[in-house]
């Protein structure tokens, strides 16, 4: 449904997007992850037909964004990072305006249905200037969905709204996966993990990793992490002892205990138990630490940058 090949975008001397390629299948929710300024918005703007790429191609529903820009724009719903609103319009007028601009047939029913879908029916005659931030976000979503597009592109839809509303927006994104292809950007990794079928991690304009969140974690996890809590030893003693255990690559203080990183494919738990008891201390806690995408991400970005 979305096909991006060797896409690059240059602003003056600054290469914002550098040779990016990825795909999104119909009905798939793809997250674009990356720190601020990584090039996420630029990629989305190219896919919506807002701006042309410097080189490379991008196709949406089989149409090239350069050659068939208008066809692409008919099939894409777009919610930019800063929700674009006309404060002097009512909710209904606003959604109606975009429906008509995009040539929706039976606009009236479609508008009512989409307002219902984002739960703004009771505010449909309110002026937009009087809506709360979460409502504005939902209204922005309504605008992006009113023409029932094949592809929905959401640029950081959960930024700047309260946690309850974040959950609502995530839920609605997940629901969108039924019937739409969704491309959404975020810099919050746990969010991508919860919502996406697949993530594309971008840093400095380049794709540095791609895959489904679980596999990405397995693939990129450089070793096993363990949390150890020892009783009866000073911190310095405990650290020295842990560092001596063969197979331990790294020891980091974490609260009252330590985070250990073991060499890949080695089970160091028996060794830890043995060393601790032999030194006359007590092993209070020993458990594996699941690495979040956050950690993986920082790891990769750290290496790449």
């Amino acid at each position, binding site marked *: 449904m979305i096909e991006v090949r060797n896409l690059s975008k240059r602003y003056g001397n600054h290469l914002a997007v550098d040779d990016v390629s990825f795909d999104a299948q119909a009905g798939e929710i793809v997250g674009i992850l990356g720190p601020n300024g990584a090039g996420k918005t630029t990629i989305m*703007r190219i896919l919506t*037909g*807002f*701006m042309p790429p410097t080189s490379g191609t991008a196709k949406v529903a089989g149409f090239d964004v350069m050659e068939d820009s*208008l066809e692409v724009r008919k099939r894409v719903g777009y919610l*930019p990072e800063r929700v674009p609103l006309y404060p*002097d319009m009512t909710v209904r007028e606003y959604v109606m*305006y975009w429906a008509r*601009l995009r040539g929706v047939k039976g606009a009236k029913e479609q508008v009512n249905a989409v307002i219902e879908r984002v739960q703004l029916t009771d505010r449909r005659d309110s002026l937009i200037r009087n809506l709360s931030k979460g409502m504005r976000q939902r209204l922005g979503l309504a605008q992006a969905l009113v023409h029932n597009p094949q592809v929905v592109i959401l640029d950081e839809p959960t930024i700047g709204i309260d946690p309850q509303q974040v959950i609502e927006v995530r839920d609605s994104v997940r629901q969108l996966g039924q019937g739409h292809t969704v491309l959404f950007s975020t810099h919050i990794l746990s969010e991508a993990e919860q919502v996406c079928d697949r993530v594309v991690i971008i840093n400095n304009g380049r794709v540095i990793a791609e895959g489904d969140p679980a596999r990405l974690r397995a693939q990129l996890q450089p070793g096993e992490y363990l949390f150890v809590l020892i009783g009866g030893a000073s911190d310095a003693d405990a650290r020295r002892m842990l560092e001596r255990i063969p197979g331990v690559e790294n020891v980091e203080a974490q609260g009252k205990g330590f985070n250990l990183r073991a060499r890949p494919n080695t089970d160091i738990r028996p060794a830890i138990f043995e060393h601790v008891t032999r030194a006359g201390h007590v092993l209070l806690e020993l458990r594996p630490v699941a690495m979040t995408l956050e950690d993986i991400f920082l790891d990769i970005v750290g290496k790449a940058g």
Partner: protein
Amino acid sequence: MRGMWIVLQRELSAYLTSPVTYLISAALLFLTGFVFNNNLVLSITVAPASPASVPLFLSFTMVFFAPLLTMRMFAEEKREGTLELLLTAPVSDIEIVLGKFLGAWVFFSLLLLVTLSYQVILSTITQPDYGIALSSYLGIWLYGGATLAVGLLFSAITENQIVAAFLSMTVLLFMYLGDLAGQVVASIDLARIIRTLTLQGHFSTSFVYGLVRAEDVAYFAGIIVIMLYITVRVVESNRWR
């Protein structure tokens, strides 16, 4: 041209629902009413009342009113971020610019229609020259379109409405007063050229006296076309930044 109609309707309803436009319109009507009254008073002793007095006065005030009417159009869309969405709607840039321009021009035409009431009043008092009334209104209608096109261009250039209004007022004032430069240069040919470039040169000595000349119509139409063309280019340039 479907997109153009939708944008036009949106702009018209934005004018008609905004309190600011009612203030601007009220000020315009108050001032023209004042001019009309003055003209009537003078007609008792000095000169017969002219149906062109209000259009002539409007030709000056449009230097300030046109920017006020158009400053919002693109500057606000840019500031609110709606321009980005508009440029990703399946509508061409030309349709967007034309829709906005026509929205402003139609609104200006509505204001002109209201000032026609002066002509009605005049016709009950005296026997005005309807030819002059017609030509001066046709003239100020075209003249207004040209000034609105200039204002629209400057609204597209910046996202600050005040800057947009200031820049277009400055340019319009030059186009209006350029005639003064023509009066002080020594060379008659140069003075003539300058005068043919100014707004006044195509209005105050032709339309106002009942003359409808092709060159004057072409001048205003030309300004509209050129300004809208540049505006389309400027709007397009948002895609390249």
